[in-house]
């Protein structure tokens, strides 16, 4: 691999890290489509994406380990269900790969998922809503209030199919519901090469009723294992390329520090619309790549790659630019408020 390509992966990692550190989601979601667009086989795109997710989640979990926001019982149950899901997801990819259609199917699912989440986040931003992103940096203790539990979770908790499991915060839920959520997210992880946090965290909150801070901590804890297991499984298929993962991880760990620091400086709601647009850009990029294959138009493949890089650059740039502006404003206000000698 050339030095230029290594540098490009490291730079891409920085952009992804800024996004993950700031929004707490979305970073790894761009890696697999980017690798697919660059022409890597689906097993390398998915396997390397999962190994990257594993490395990032280790770093994020180390940062959160002292906050006491992990439900280990729930985490272990999630790991069991997720492992089964990843294995089934991997078999699906290999099955479609043998049939020669895995890139197409993975790409189509990506287009719909990225597009749907992008529309959701953009719509919420325009409405002034507050639930378009997943906050992985919740630092306060979980306070359980029944009015905070979503109605769907209350409904699901009311189905008392034994055995019932007691979770932190006094939540009781059926073991089967936990395993079903875990299996579904594991399937997505194994099939698409993503950590699954963008769907598991809201699933833990909206479906199981776990308080958000505990959902975040448990999600991170679980991603370490699902990412590690996924990497192990895909490495056996020759799907993990360390020359891709190592520079991406080095860049993203640095970017995540910048992104995390920016959360205390910039209002997330001011930037969330860019994040939604970035996901829509990712969705268009994967669609453009598929169209270039169908109609044999190489220019569309270049457009696709440019869309992914530009949309990540736009949002990461917006985060950094807004942070610099906010810091300078604070500095100027501080100087004005000081009494003249």
């Amino acid at each position: 691999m050339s030095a230029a390509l290594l540098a490009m992966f490291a730079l891409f990692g920085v952009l992804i890290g800024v996004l993950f550190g700031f929004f707490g989601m979305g970073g790894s979601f761009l890696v697999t489509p980017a690798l697919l667009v660059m022409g890597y086989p689906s097993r390398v795109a998915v396997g390397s994406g999962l190994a990257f997710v594993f490395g990032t989640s280790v770093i994020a979990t180390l940062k959160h380990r002292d906050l006491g926001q992990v439900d280990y019982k729930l985490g272990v149950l999630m790991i069991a269900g997720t492992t089964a899901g990843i294995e089934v997801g991997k078999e699906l990819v290999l099955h479609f790969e043998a049939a020669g259609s895995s890139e197409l199917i993975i790409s189509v699912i990506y287009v719909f998922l990225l597009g749907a989440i992008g529309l959701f986040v953009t719509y919420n931003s325009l409405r002034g809503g507050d639930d378009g992103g997943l906050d992985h940096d919740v630092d306060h203790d979980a306070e359980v209030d029944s009015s905070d539990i979503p109605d769907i979770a209350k409904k699901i908790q009311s189905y008392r199919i034994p055995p019932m499991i007691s979770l932190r915060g006094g939540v009781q839920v059926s073991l089967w519901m936990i395993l079903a959520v875990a299996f579904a997210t594991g399937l997505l992880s194994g099939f698409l090469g993503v950590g699954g946090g963008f769907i598991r965290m809201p699933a833990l909150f909206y479906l199981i009723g776990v308080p958000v801070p505990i959902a975040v901590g448990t999600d991170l804890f679980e991603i370490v294992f699902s990412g590690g297991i996924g990497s192990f499984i895909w490495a056996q298929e020759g799907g993990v390329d360390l020359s891709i993962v190592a520079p991406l991880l080095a860049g993203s760990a640095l970017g995540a520090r910048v992104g995390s620091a920016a959360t205390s400086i910039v209002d997330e709601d001011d930037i969330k619309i860019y994040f939604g647009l970035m996901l829509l850009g990712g969705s268009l990029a994967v669609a453009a790549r598929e169209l270039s294959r169908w109609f044999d138009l190489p220019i569309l493949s270049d457009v696709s790659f440019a869309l992914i890089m530009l949309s990540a650059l736009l949002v990461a740039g917006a985060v950094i630019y807004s942070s610099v502006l906010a810091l300078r404003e604070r500095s100027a206000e501080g100087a004005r408020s000081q009494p003249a000698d």
Partner: protein
Amino acid sequence: MFGIETLNGPAYSAAIVGLVLVEAMVLYVGYGGLTRAVGSQITRAVAGDDG
């Protein structure tokens, strides 16, 4: 890379996962130290503070 090509099967996979884990921990410690060492200076420089 790192001579792990000579391994095969589960040993190769375990080596891959182990290398990613070690890199993640080194990055966590390394960037953490860097942040503590120069983080506040960089923040002040970006903010345009003189002091």
